[in-house]
């Protein structure tokens, strides 16, 4: 079933690419185009990996978008106003993001606040903090900081490499490491997982911490790629990412999904966006057609699955 989704989604993406390559031979199947698409979905994907982890465990986090803005903002603030060394600034930003994740996790698992409410509230709080930090928007970062997100390796810009690294690492972890494997138990039968000696709450708490960290990394990359920390960055990211993750085979019920699915989901969205503009769809129609494509993609997938079963 999950496998199927990975397969069908890859197939869909492949199909899309082939068709587009015939329709726009000069424009679509070019290195330039693909590296741009990749670059633009790298931030989302990095967060999506974390979201996939949470959704495997049967929860999700709406505050990631704000954390992205916060992390970049904090780093920028420290470097710009207190000329802190860029490494220290990054360390601080990541610890901050991690802490936010911890607070989410703690209040959800220990106090028992509904995850949706908790992370929604946190989304507001952290957005507020981000605004405080970056206010008008901060730039003129030290060269080293901008280097992180702007350097090109083998003619691909660094965020792409970070994305692939994170996807690969987490795929490996979820296949081979007991710790991460447990999230499947938790997601598919929390009570049973508990009775099997898995520390459900602690694991979930860790999940939120990891997501916080990944969102923090995404924030650093975005701001250094932009060369500026903007308080508005990451707005609406949470829903985009959750969509990608569900597209990639996760379910709100939990227990399902694979890390690579997060990447595929994000990739699908990215490519579709690219296609819409290539095929001259006007701005007003963008959302409409994007929505329809989304429904079609998932709907057809469903019908296929039913046929198979």
């Amino acid at each position, binding site marked *: 079933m*999950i496998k199927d989704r990975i397969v069908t989604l890859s197939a869909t993406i492949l199909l899309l690419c082939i068709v587009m390559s015939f329709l726009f031979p000069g424009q679509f199947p070019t290195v330039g185009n693909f590296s741009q698409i990749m670059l633009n979905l790298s931030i989302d994907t990095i967060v999506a990996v974390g979201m996939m982890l949470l959704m495997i465990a049967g929860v999700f986090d709406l505050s990631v978008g704000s954390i992205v803005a916060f992390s970049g903002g904090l780093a920028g603030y420290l470097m710009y106003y207190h000329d802190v060394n860029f490494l220290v600034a990054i360390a601080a930003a990541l610890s901050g993001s991690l802490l936010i994740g911890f607070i989410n996790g703690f209040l959800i698992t220990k106090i028992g606040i509904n995850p949706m409410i908790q992370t929604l509230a946190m989304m507001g709080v952290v957005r507020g903090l981000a605004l405080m930090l970056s206010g008008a928007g901060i730039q003129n970062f030290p060269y080293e900081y901008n280097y992180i997100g702007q350097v090109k390796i083998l003619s691909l810009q660094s965020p792409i490499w970070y994305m692939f690294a994170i996807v690969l690492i987490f795929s490996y972890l979820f296949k*081979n*490491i*007991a*710790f991460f*494997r*447990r999230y*499947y*138990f938790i*997601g*598919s*039968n929390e*009570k*049973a*997982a508990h*009775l*099997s*000696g*898995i520390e459900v709450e602690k694991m979930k708490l860790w999940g939120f911490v990891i997501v916080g960290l990944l969102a923090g990394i995404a924030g650093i990359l975005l701001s250094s790629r932009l060369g500026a920390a903007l308080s508005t960055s990451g707005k609406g990211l949470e829903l985009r990412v959750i969509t990608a993750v569900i597209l990639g085979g996760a379910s709100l019920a939990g*227990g*399902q999904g694979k890390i690579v699915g997060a990447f595929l989901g994000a990739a699908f969205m990215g490519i579709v966006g690219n296609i819409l503009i290539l095929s001259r769809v006007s701005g007003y129609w963008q959302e409409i057609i994007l929505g329809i494509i989304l429904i079609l993609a998932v709907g057809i997938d469903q019908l296929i699955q039913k046929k198979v079963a």
Partner: protein
Amino acid sequence: MKLGLKNIAKSFEVVKALQDVSLEFHEGEVHAICGENGAGKSTLMNILTGNIQPDAGSILLDNQIVTIHNNQQARSLGINIVYQERSLTDGLSVAENIFPLPPTKSFGRINFVQLHQQTKALLQQLEIKEFSPATMVATLSPAQKTLVEIAKALATNPAILLLDEPTASLTDKETTILFSVIRTLKQRGVTVLYISHRMAEIKLIADRVSVLKDGKYQDTLSTNNCTTEDIIRLMVGRDLQQVDVATHSTEEVVLSVKNLCGKGFSDISFDLKKGEIFGLGGLVGAGRTELAMAIFGAIPADGGTILKNGHRIHNNHPKQGIANGIAYLPEERKTLGVFLQKSIAENIVSAQLYGKGYNVKANNQKAGEYAKTLNIRSSSVQQLMSKLSGGNQQKVVLAKWLNTQPDVLIVDEPTHGIDIGAKLEIYKILKQLTADGKSILLISSEMEELLLLSDRISVMREGKIKGILNKKETSENEIIKLAAQ
């Protein structure tokens, strides 16, 4: 290891689940624990596995007082359990389910080779060939799942093994396997606490048997110098008069199934007569549940016809099944039968949500009556289903279906996990229903049950009816021969 309980007490809100229970378990004995539904057996197990803490009393291991905070600690102390409720993860393989905390290499990397070897070994020990360590649990039958649960418990090779109604969803085949395993464990000096409502088994496997009643310790008997009746008397506090098994079967055909085909069964034909109890025997996976569900309308039938009182009916949805006077009491109570977070009353009316009105008062009253007639033990009909013991839950589900006033009642393993007292009550109810002119299709993996209640018994194998035997001139062996081979 020697296990002892001293003056254990536990109560939930008003319910006194256990009161002043003291027990001694010898090393290497198989010790059965009997009691009616709600007597406190599972609560006792949950205390021994650290899932709940007793209000009073102490646990002794080799005469040392221990406090067990959680089930990991219990495991590390050498205590492990097969829960009454299933605790598996459908999305993962058998191997990973059996070892939730798997063997690892450096950096917590799972050692899959070792994992599968260990699992294979366990499966062999349990003589399981139908599935392998890599099989997805989701594809297993209830029975097969129970076997995985047992393997999971054995995986930590415990010194004390608790089995809370392990045979509830097993057929004789798996049961015999389980017993041979228990015997080998016993030779290894493992203490086995064995909970079951099947008296025959207890005589068969247990050395001693302790009885609980309403959370109070009654007595401990040695099985080779006591009779089933003695045990039952302790359990229910009175002699059970036998169910009168006089048949009420008439010649009038109520339900006539002709060449019915569907997923898991094919070419099924039989007549169900007014007032008859028609038994359906066979091994797990024989396709009985699918057949039942198809007749009821819960899953589609691919071909064949169903006649009710001579008229053809099409049940494409349980709604129609109910409308056509058919009721289906499902096999898997927890997942298909009950609304755990709803009250007893709500559960009883849940198959009756037609028409316009919904009158809470009337419903409670109706529920109250059923609670009385079926003698459902609870503080009130407002009590949440989740707070009831398994047996009482089953009675509520039965009440729910009786409440639909069916002519044909299909019951799939109706006495799974039900105590002997309740069991006989249910037998009486079923018989009474036939006396009232209702017809019953009884799916059961318990031979005694089939032979006791059925007027006729058909045996299914691999989705086909292998023969319909008249109760008068049939025997257990004949049925088993038809079922397997």
